[in-house]
Protein backbone atom coordinates (compact mmCIF):
# COMPACT_ATOMS: atom_id res chain seq x y z
CA UNK A 1 0.00 0.00 0.00
CA UNK A 2 1.37 3.37 -0.92
CA UNK A 3 -0.18 5.06 2.11
CA UNK A 4 2.41 3.46 4.38
CA UNK A 5 6.01 4.51 4.86
CA UNK A 6 8.22 2.03 2.99
CA UNK A 7 11.33 0.33 4.38
CA UNK A 8 14.70 -0.17 2.69
CA UNK A 9 17.33 -2.43 4.27
CA UNK A 10 20.98 -1.92 3.29
CA UNK A 11 23.57 -4.37 4.57
CA UNK A 12 27.14 -5.23 3.61
CA UNK A 13 25.91 -8.78 3.19
CA UNK A 14 23.19 -9.82 0.71
CA UNK A 15 22.18 -12.62 3.08
CA UNK A 16 21.80 -10.29 6.07
CA UNK A 17 19.75 -7.85 3.97
CA UNK A 18 17.47 -10.58 2.68
CA UNK A 19 17.17 -12.18 6.10
CA UNK A 20 16.18 -8.91 7.74
CA UNK A 21 13.59 -8.29 4.99
CA UNK A 22 12.22 -11.83 5.45
CA UNK A 23 11.82 -11.18 9.17
CA UNK A 24 9.91 -7.99 8.49
CA UNK A 25 7.54 -9.76 6.10
CA UNK A 26 7.06 -12.65 8.50
CA UNK A 27 6.43 -10.47 11.55
CA UNK A 28 4.68 -7.47 10.05
CA UNK A 29 3.05 -8.80 6.91
CA UNK A 30 2.83 -7.64 3.35
CA UNK A 31 1.17 -4.24 3.72
CA UNK A 32 4.44 -2.39 4.23
CA UNK A 33 6.62 -2.35 1.15
CA UNK A 34 10.14 -3.57 1.91
CA UNK A 35 13.14 -3.54 -0.41
CA UNK A 36 16.66 -4.63 0.40
CA UNK A 37 20.14 -4.76 -1.04
CA UNK A 38 23.53 -5.99 0.09
CA UNK A 39 26.97 -6.56 -1.35
CA UNK A 40 29.22 -4.46 -3.55
CA UNK A 41 28.99 -4.19 -7.33
CA UNK A 42 31.00 -7.40 -7.71
CA UNK A 43 28.94 -9.43 -5.28
CA UNK A 44 31.43 -9.27 -2.39
CA UNK A 45 30.74 -7.79 1.04
CA UNK A 46 30.02 -4.07 0.80
CA UNK A 47 27.31 -1.76 -0.41
CA UNK A 48 26.50 -0.46 -3.87
CA UNK A 49 25.10 3.03 -4.45
CA UNK A 50 23.33 1.93 -7.64
CA UNK A 51 21.67 -0.99 -5.86
CA UNK A 52 20.61 1.24 -2.96
CA UNK A 53 19.00 3.64 -5.43
CA UNK A 54 17.24 0.76 -7.17
CA UNK A 55 15.87 -0.49 -3.84
CA UNK A 56 14.57 2.98 -2.93
CA UNK A 57 12.98 3.38 -6.39
CA UNK A 58 11.22 0.07 -6.01
CA UNK A 59 9.27 1.06 -2.89
CA UNK A 60 9.26 4.87 -2.70
CA UNK A 61 5.99 6.73 -2.35
CA UNK A 62 4.60 10.00 -1.04
CA UNK A 63 4.73 8.89 2.62
CA UNK A 64 8.48 8.44 2.37
CA UNK A 65 11.05 5.73 2.95
CA UNK A 66 12.89 4.73 6.14
CA UNK A 67 16.33 3.25 5.44
CA UNK A 68 18.03 0.84 7.86
CA UNK A 69 21.77 0.28 7.46
CA UNK A 70 24.37 -1.88 9.19
CA UNK A 71 27.95 -0.55 9.35
CA UNK A 72 29.67 2.73 8.40
CA UNK A 73 30.02 2.29 4.65
CA UNK A 74 26.37 1.35 4.30
CA UNK A 75 25.41 4.61 5.98
CA UNK A 76 27.77 6.76 3.90
CA UNK A 77 26.77 5.04 0.66
CA UNK A 78 23.06 5.38 1.49
CA UNK A 79 23.43 9.11 2.18
CA UNK A 80 25.25 9.47 -1.12
CA UNK A 81 22.59 7.46 -2.98
CA UNK A 82 19.78 9.61 -1.57
CA UNK A 83 21.55 12.87 -2.42
CA UNK A 84 22.25 11.79 -5.98
CA UNK A 85 18.61 10.87 -6.64
CA UNK A 86 17.08 13.94 -4.96
CA UNK A 87 15.33 15.01 -8.18
CA UNK A 88 13.36 11.83 -8.64
CA UNK A 89 12.29 11.05 -5.07
CA UNK A 90 8.53 10.90 -4.54
CA UNK A 91 8.75 11.57 -0.81
CA UNK A 92 11.31 12.07 1.91
CA UNK A 93 13.92 9.35 2.45
CA UNK A 94 15.63 9.17 5.85
CA UNK A 95 18.26 6.99 7.48
CA UNK A 96 17.36 5.50 10.87
CA UNK A 97 20.08 5.31 13.50
CA UNK A 98 19.02 1.88 14.70
CA UNK A 99 20.19 -1.73 14.61
CA UNK A 100 19.33 -3.15 11.22
CA UNK A 101 17.16 -6.13 12.10
CA UNK A 102 15.36 -4.80 15.18
CA UNK A 103 15.12 -1.34 13.61
CA UNK A 104 13.57 -2.70 10.42
CA UNK A 105 10.98 -4.74 12.29
CA UNK A 106 10.08 -1.84 14.62
CA UNK A 107 9.96 0.65 11.76
CA UNK A 108 7.74 -1.63 9.68
CA UNK A 109 5.44 -2.29 12.61
CA UNK A 110 4.98 1.44 13.13
CA UNK A 111 4.61 2.04 9.38
CA UNK A 112 1.92 -0.64 9.04
CA UNK A 113 -0.38 1.48 11.19
CA UNK A 114 -0.07 4.38 8.75
CA UNK A 115 2.33 6.42 10.89
CA UNK A 116 4.32 9.36 9.51
CA UNK A 117 7.95 8.99 8.48
CA UNK A 118 9.05 10.90 11.60
CA UNK A 119 7.13 8.52 13.83
CA UNK A 120 8.52 5.49 12.01
CA UNK A 121 12.06 6.73 12.43
CA UNK A 122 11.57 7.60 16.11
CA UNK A 123 10.15 4.17 16.84
CA UNK A 124 13.11 2.46 15.16
CA UNK A 125 15.62 4.67 16.93
CA UNK A 126 14.05 4.37 20.37
CA UNK A 127 14.22 0.61 20.32
CA UNK A 128 17.51 0.32 22.15
CA UNK A 129 17.52 3.61 24.04
Amino acid at each position, binding site marked *: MTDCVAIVIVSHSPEVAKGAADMVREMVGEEVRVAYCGG*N*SEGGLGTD*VGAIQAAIRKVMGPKGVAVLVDL*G*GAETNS*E*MAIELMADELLGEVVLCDAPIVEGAVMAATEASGGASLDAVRSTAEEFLS
Partner: protein
Amino acid sequence: MAPDLVRRLREETAARIAAHTDELTALDQAIGDGDHGFNMKRGFEAIAAAAEDLDALALGPALQKAGMTLVMKVGGASGPLYGSFLMAWGKAMTGDPPTREDFAASLAEGVAAVKKRGRSEAGEKTMLDVLVPVLDAITQAQGDPIAAARQAAKDGLETTRDMKATKGRASFLGERSIGHIDPGARSSALLVETVCDVLEENP
Protein backbone atom coordinates in the same frame (compact mmCIF):
# COMPACT_ATOMS: atom_id res chain seq x y z
CA MET B 1 49.10 22.15 -17.78
CA ALA B 2 49.91 19.33 -20.13
CA PRO B 3 47.12 18.30 -22.50
CA ASP B 4 47.44 14.68 -21.49
CA LEU B 5 47.26 15.42 -17.75
CA VAL B 6 43.93 13.67 -17.29
CA ARG B 7 45.22 10.56 -19.05
CA ARG B 8 48.39 10.49 -16.96
CA LEU B 9 46.51 11.00 -13.69
CA ARG B 10 44.05 8.27 -14.63
CA GLU B 11 46.79 5.78 -15.52
CA GLU B 12 49.21 6.57 -12.74
CA THR B 13 46.71 6.66 -9.85
CA ALA B 14 45.35 3.26 -10.92
CA ALA B 15 48.87 1.82 -11.21
CA ARG B 16 49.98 3.08 -7.79
CA ILE B 17 46.82 1.97 -6.04
CA ALA B 18 47.22 -1.46 -7.66
CA ALA B 19 50.85 -1.64 -6.56
CA HIS B 20 49.87 -0.78 -2.97
CA THR B 21 46.65 -2.80 -2.69
CA ASP B 22 48.21 -5.35 -0.35
CA GLU B 23 49.70 -2.66 1.86
CA LEU B 24 46.32 -0.89 2.17
CA THR B 25 44.65 -4.19 2.89
CA ALA B 26 47.16 -5.03 5.62
CA LEU B 27 46.72 -1.61 7.25
CA ASP B 28 42.95 -1.97 7.11
CA GLN B 29 43.05 -5.50 8.52
CA ALA B 30 44.83 -4.08 11.56
CA ILE B 31 42.19 -1.50 12.46
CA GLY B 32 39.32 -1.81 9.98
CA ASP B 33 37.60 -4.53 8.00
CA GLY B 34 40.37 -5.19 5.50
CA ASP B 35 38.53 -4.13 2.37
CA HIS B 36 40.19 -0.78 1.71
CA GLY B 37 42.86 -2.08 -0.67
CA PHE B 38 40.46 -3.96 -2.91
CA ASN B 39 37.82 -1.25 -2.79
CA MET B 40 40.32 1.38 -3.90
CA LYS B 41 41.72 -0.93 -6.56
CA ARG B 42 38.26 -1.61 -7.95
CA GLY B 43 37.42 2.10 -7.98
CA PHE B 44 40.59 3.28 -9.67
CA GLU B 45 40.47 0.43 -12.18
CA ALA B 46 37.00 1.66 -13.12
CA ILE B 47 38.37 5.19 -13.54
CA ALA B 48 41.27 3.88 -15.61
CA ALA B 49 38.83 1.97 -17.80
CA ALA B 50 36.76 5.11 -18.50
CA ALA B 51 39.48 6.44 -20.81
CA GLU B 52 37.23 7.42 -23.69
CA ASP B 53 34.92 9.45 -21.49
CA LEU B 54 37.58 11.03 -19.32
CA ASP B 55 40.52 11.92 -21.52
CA ALA B 56 38.61 14.38 -23.68
CA LEU B 57 37.46 16.38 -20.65
CA ALA B 58 39.07 19.37 -18.95
CA LEU B 59 40.48 18.60 -15.52
CA GLY B 60 37.47 19.86 -13.55
CA PRO B 61 34.80 17.82 -15.36
CA ALA B 62 37.17 14.83 -15.45
CA LEU B 63 37.55 14.95 -11.66
CA GLN B 64 33.77 15.10 -11.29
CA LYS B 65 33.28 12.11 -13.54
CA ALA B 66 36.02 10.15 -11.79
CA GLY B 67 34.36 10.96 -8.45
CA MET B 68 31.04 9.64 -9.65
CA THR B 69 32.76 6.47 -10.86
CA LEU B 70 34.21 5.92 -7.36
CA VAL B 71 30.81 6.48 -5.77
CA MET B 72 29.19 3.88 -7.98
CA LYS B 73 31.98 1.28 -7.95
CA VAL B 74 33.84 1.20 -4.66
CA GLY B 75 31.28 -0.35 -2.33
CA GLY B 76 32.88 0.77 0.96
CA ALA B 77 32.85 4.07 2.82
CA SER B 78 35.87 5.19 0.81
CA GLY B 79 33.68 5.38 -2.34
CA PRO B 80 31.44 8.21 -1.19
CA LEU B 81 34.31 9.88 0.69
CA TYR B 82 36.78 9.96 -2.21
CA GLY B 83 33.88 10.35 -4.64
CA SER B 84 32.50 13.43 -2.87
CA PHE B 85 36.04 14.79 -2.67
CA LEU B 86 36.66 14.55 -6.42
CA MET B 87 33.15 15.66 -7.37
CA ALA B 88 33.32 18.82 -5.22
CA TRP B 89 36.91 19.53 -6.22
CA GLY B 90 36.14 19.15 -9.93
CA LYS B 91 32.94 21.17 -9.72
CA ALA B 92 34.76 24.11 -8.13
CA MET B 93 37.69 23.96 -10.56
CA THR B 94 36.83 26.66 -13.05
CA GLY B 95 40.06 27.50 -14.89
CA ASP B 96 41.21 25.34 -17.81
CA PRO B 97 44.04 24.99 -17.18
CA PRO B 98 43.54 25.99 -13.55
CA THR B 99 45.87 28.55 -12.01
CA ARG B 100 47.54 27.75 -8.72
CA GLU B 101 44.85 29.83 -7.00
CA ASP B 102 42.07 27.93 -8.82
CA PHE B 103 43.71 24.66 -7.87
CA ALA B 104 43.96 25.55 -4.17
CA ALA B 105 40.50 27.14 -3.91
CA SER B 106 38.79 24.20 -5.61
CA LEU B 107 40.79 21.67 -3.59
CA ALA B 108 39.46 23.40 -0.47
CA GLU B 109 35.92 22.66 -1.69
CA GLY B 110 36.88 19.01 -2.12
CA VAL B 111 38.31 18.77 1.39
CA ALA B 112 35.20 20.48 2.79
CA ALA B 113 33.06 17.85 1.06
CA VAL B 114 35.01 15.05 2.76
CA LYS B 115 34.47 16.70 6.15
CA LYS B 116 30.77 17.00 5.48
CA ARG B 117 30.34 13.48 4.14
CA GLY B 118 32.32 11.90 6.97
CA ARG B 119 31.07 14.36 9.63
CA SER B 120 34.70 14.59 10.62
CA GLU B 121 37.62 16.98 11.04
CA ALA B 122 41.39 16.54 11.03
CA GLY B 123 42.71 14.85 14.18
CA GLU B 124 40.35 11.87 14.11
CA LYS B 125 42.68 9.37 12.38
CA THR B 126 41.23 9.60 8.89
CA MET B 127 42.14 10.67 5.36
CA LEU B 128 41.54 14.26 6.52
CA ASP B 129 44.79 14.09 8.52
CA VAL B 130 46.55 14.01 5.16
CA LEU B 131 44.22 16.13 3.03
CA VAL B 132 43.88 19.08 5.43
CA PRO B 133 47.65 19.60 5.93
CA VAL B 134 48.22 19.16 2.19
CA LEU B 135 45.62 21.82 1.43
CA ASP B 136 47.14 24.14 4.04
CA ALA B 137 50.62 23.55 2.60
CA ILE B 138 49.50 24.36 -0.94
CA THR B 139 47.59 27.43 0.17
CA GLN B 140 50.40 28.79 2.31
CA ALA B 141 53.51 27.59 0.48
CA GLN B 142 56.03 30.35 -0.16
CA GLY B 143 58.20 28.21 -2.42
CA ASP B 144 57.35 25.12 -4.46
CA PRO B 145 53.76 24.03 -3.67
CA ILE B 146 54.40 20.51 -4.97
CA ALA B 147 57.30 19.95 -2.58
CA ALA B 148 55.23 21.43 0.24
CA ALA B 149 52.32 19.12 -0.58
CA ARG B 150 54.59 16.05 -0.60
CA GLN B 151 56.05 16.86 2.79
CA ALA B 152 52.64 17.68 4.30
CA ALA B 153 51.23 14.34 3.09
CA LYS B 154 54.15 12.43 4.58
CA ASP B 155 54.00 14.24 7.91
CA GLY B 156 50.20 14.10 8.05
CA LEU B 157 50.19 10.35 7.46
CA GLU B 158 52.64 9.80 10.28
CA THR B 159 50.50 11.83 12.73
CA THR B 160 47.72 9.27 12.39
CA ARG B 161 49.87 6.59 14.01
CA ASP B 162 49.45 7.93 17.54
CA MET B 163 45.86 9.04 17.16
CA LYS B 164 42.89 7.24 18.61
CA ALA B 165 40.21 6.64 16.01
CA THR B 166 36.79 8.12 16.71
CA LYS B 167 35.35 7.72 13.21
CA GLY B 168 34.65 4.71 11.07
CA ARG B 169 35.23 1.07 11.84
CA ALA B 170 38.55 1.75 13.57
CA SER B 171 36.66 3.62 16.31
CA PHE B 172 35.31 0.26 17.53
CA LEU B 173 38.86 -0.53 18.62
CA GLY B 174 39.21 2.62 20.74
CA GLU B 175 42.63 2.67 22.39
CA ARG B 176 43.75 -0.34 20.36
CA SER B 177 43.66 1.77 17.20
CA ILE B 178 46.67 3.68 18.55
CA GLY B 179 49.99 2.61 17.03
CA HIS B 180 48.61 1.90 13.55
CA ILE B 181 48.71 4.21 10.54
CA ASP B 182 45.23 4.91 9.22
CA PRO B 183 44.57 3.10 5.91
CA GLY B 184 42.50 5.98 4.50
CA ALA B 185 45.26 8.44 5.36
CA ARG B 186 47.72 6.07 3.65
CA SER B 187 45.71 5.92 0.44
CA SER B 188 45.34 9.71 0.51
CA ALA B 189 49.10 10.18 0.97
CA LEU B 190 49.73 7.74 -1.86
CA LEU B 191 47.40 9.65 -4.16
CA VAL B 192 48.92 13.02 -3.22
CA GLU B 193 52.38 11.64 -3.98
CA THR B 194 51.15 10.25 -7.30
CA VAL B 195 49.51 13.53 -8.34
CA CYS B 196 52.72 15.40 -7.41
CA ASP B 197 54.76 13.00 -9.55
CA VAL B 198 52.45 13.42 -12.54
CA LEU B 199 52.41 17.22 -12.18
CA GLU B 200 56.21 17.22 -12.20
CA GLU B 201 56.42 15.17 -15.40
CA ASN B 202 55.57 18.26 -17.42
CA PRO B 203 56.51 21.30 -15.41
